[in-house]
């Protein structure tokens, strides 16, 4: 007979749900408001979204309860916290890009903001759980919202991008479930900590099963993290989406993916699955190198940034392979610093977004567009230059410190060869970032019209740009406090 259910509300730790609850509530309220009051401007929704995000961020920061909540489905540990912070801050910054100078289809619709908040909620759930079901649902919620948002840009390319992303996402979902199934078959559990326990008890036998599960998980997460050869969607999707969303995509889905990968793969590597370590080693190198090599030959800045984000992801994935606390802290540090540089770069693209293809039949932001920018629009050129240098890992700008810390982590754990490859890759990467610099600073302008570079510029964008420049430039003093916070959180969760 079934016993009556008695649930201790305190043990549920409801507060741990607060951040996600706020975002979901925000999304719902936006829909409701949209139903109630028509003709609201995009600025209203944007600001409202930001407010909800800030509230959620407050809830994350203010959280000091137990790790586990709701029958262990929710795991609010350190990396969940830190990644949520990154997700929320990035979201808040990027959603403000909606307030560009021109009107765009998607930003005029309240649903966009609702979907945006739903997506954040999805990612939040995804990072704060070690239950494969929960992760899956969170992932899908976020992805579905994201597909729609891409398509809402309402250009043929946006649709194409959305469909490509969606289809491949569906396949990746298949991989994910397959992996979960094999893990379940092996351990009878769908919770990572439980899986770890059982696998250790079984001595990782049959290894082929463990590896197969890992393989499918690699496929699923590799898709999210745009790991070679699961990366093929990245450039197309970035190109098709609006610059604002593309920039967002280069940060948030990946950090969520990294967290899941950390939870799962590091468990395996720590338990001595050398196979995974080797495979990841190769994958990391391939991803870095491929991203860099193909980025070299791109003609469009946005596509170039897409490939470069593949390379950056590969670089950061090395942290998972290394697996030390330092490396994991480095991962988050890198990603935060990368976020600011990327925010700036994509914002700049967004601000220079012109209604027509003036330069190339296909591309919105071909390199040619920027040639001689220093003469036409010097401030913009210098700002863009700073972001390029930052992305290239030029000291003293932001990403350099991330690179430094990650490479140091590699060296400290004895992965010297890896560090060398990372270094060589950064050298290679410099070329394509430099290409834009060369166009902007060294070539002659194609047009004397300054407005060409500011057709979507607005005060908000300027503020964001200013903020990004500021953070990127002074990151040397930010590293210390950031590291302290990150290391604190990462150590808390035992990574």
């Amino acid at each position, binding site marked *: 007979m079934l016993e009556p259910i008695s*649930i201790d509300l305190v043990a549920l730790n409801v507060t741990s749900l607060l951040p996600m609850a706020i975002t979901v509530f925000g999304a719902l309220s936006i829909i409701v408001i949209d139903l109630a009051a028509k003709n609201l401007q995009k600025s209203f929704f944007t600001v409202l979204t930001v407010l909800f995000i800030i509230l959620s961020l407050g809830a994350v920061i203010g959280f000091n309860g137990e790790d586990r909540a709701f029958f262990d489905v929710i795991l609010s540990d350190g990396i969940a916290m830190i990644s949520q912070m990154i997700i929320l801050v990035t979201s808040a910054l990027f959603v403000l890009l909606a307030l560009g100078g021109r*009107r765009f289809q998607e930003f005029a*619709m309240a*649903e966009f903001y609702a*979907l945006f908040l739903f997506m954040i909620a999805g990612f939040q*759930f995804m990072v704060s759980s070690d239950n494969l079901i929960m992760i899956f649902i969170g992932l899908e919620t976020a992805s*579905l919202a994201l597909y729609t948002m891409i398509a*809402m840009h309402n250009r043929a390319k946006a649709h194409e991008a959305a469909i490509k992303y969606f289809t491949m996402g569906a396949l990746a979902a298949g991989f994910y479930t397959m992996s979960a199934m094999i893990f379940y078959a092996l351990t009878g559990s769908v919770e990572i900590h439980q899986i770890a326990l059982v696998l250790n008890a079984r001595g990782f036998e049959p290894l082929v099963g463990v590896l197969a599960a890992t393989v499918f998980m690699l496929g699923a997460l590799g898709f999210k993290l745009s790991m070679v050869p699961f990366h093929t969607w990245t450039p197309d999707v970035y190109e098709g989406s609006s610059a604002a969303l593309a920039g967002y995509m280069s940060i948030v889905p990946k950090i969520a993916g990294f967290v899941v990968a950390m939870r799962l793969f590091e468990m395996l590597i720590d338990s001595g699955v050398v196979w995974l370590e080797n495979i990841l080693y190769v994958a990391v190198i391939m991803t870095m190198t491929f991203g860099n090599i193909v980025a070299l030959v791109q003609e469009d800045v946005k596509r170039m940034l897409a490939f470069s984000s593949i390379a950056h992801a590969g670089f950061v994935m090395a942290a998972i392979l290394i697996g030390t606390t330092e490396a994991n802290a480095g991962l988050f540090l890198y990603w935060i610093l990368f976020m600011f540089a990327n925010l700036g770069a994509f914002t700049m693209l967004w601000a220079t977004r012109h209604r027509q293809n003036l330069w190339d039949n296909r591309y919105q932001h071909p390199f040619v567009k920027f040639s001689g920018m220093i003469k036409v629009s010097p401030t913009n050129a210098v700002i863009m230059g700073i972001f390029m240098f930052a992305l290239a890992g030029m000291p003293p700008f932001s990403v350099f410190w991330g690179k430094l810390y990650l490479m140091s982590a590699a060296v400290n754990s004895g992965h010297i060869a890896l560090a060398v490859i990372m270094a060589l890759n950064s050298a290679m990467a410099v070329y394509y970032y430099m290409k834009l610099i060369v166009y902007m600073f060294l070539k002659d302008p194609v047009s004397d019209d300054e407005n060409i570079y500011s057709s979507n510029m607005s005060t908000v964008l300027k503020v964001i740009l200013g903020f990004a420049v500021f953070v990127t430039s002074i990151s040397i003093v930010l590293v210390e406090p950031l590291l302290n916070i990150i290391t604190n959180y990462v150590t808390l969760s035992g990574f």
Partner: protein
Amino acid sequence: MFEVIAFYTFSILTILMFGIVVLSKNALYAMSALAGGMIFISGFFFLLGAEFLGVVQIVVYSGAVMALYAFGMMFFDTTRDVKENIQYKKILYTLSVLSAVLIVIIMSAPLFSANIEAIYPSMVEGVGNTQMVGLVLFTKYLIPFELAAVMLLVAMISGILLVSKRMEMNLTEEDNYEEKGEII
């Protein structure tokens, strides 16, 4: 014995059905076969004592999903044969065969372990499957369940939005620009 016969029958049928889905040139056949395959799969669920899931499978897939597909198909006017221009067939075949072989090899490995204790036992004396499912769903999996609701909401909003009239206008186009040209 019944189990064996049922398993093999259903297996053959599902494989057949899904084979048609993948190989048929006619979209209508493919869709019908998919619906059939889904129903046969629910047969496995019943066989395995997951009545609730079996019902859900029939309702959701054969009901909702297939209806959606049918509407879609009518919209796209693909009831007739579709021409598919398949490139690099050799690669396709190699990949197909390899994937089948490898996945089957892995699945036939002894994944199962007898000494694992169920955390959420499905068989409690005197309690039906549906009841058990309800119990677990509203305790342990309450949050995923709620999130699934959110996900469905997202899907709903997306679906409505994407096919709505609003996606046919273009704000940028309406803006008064002096230059003319293709909107990107």
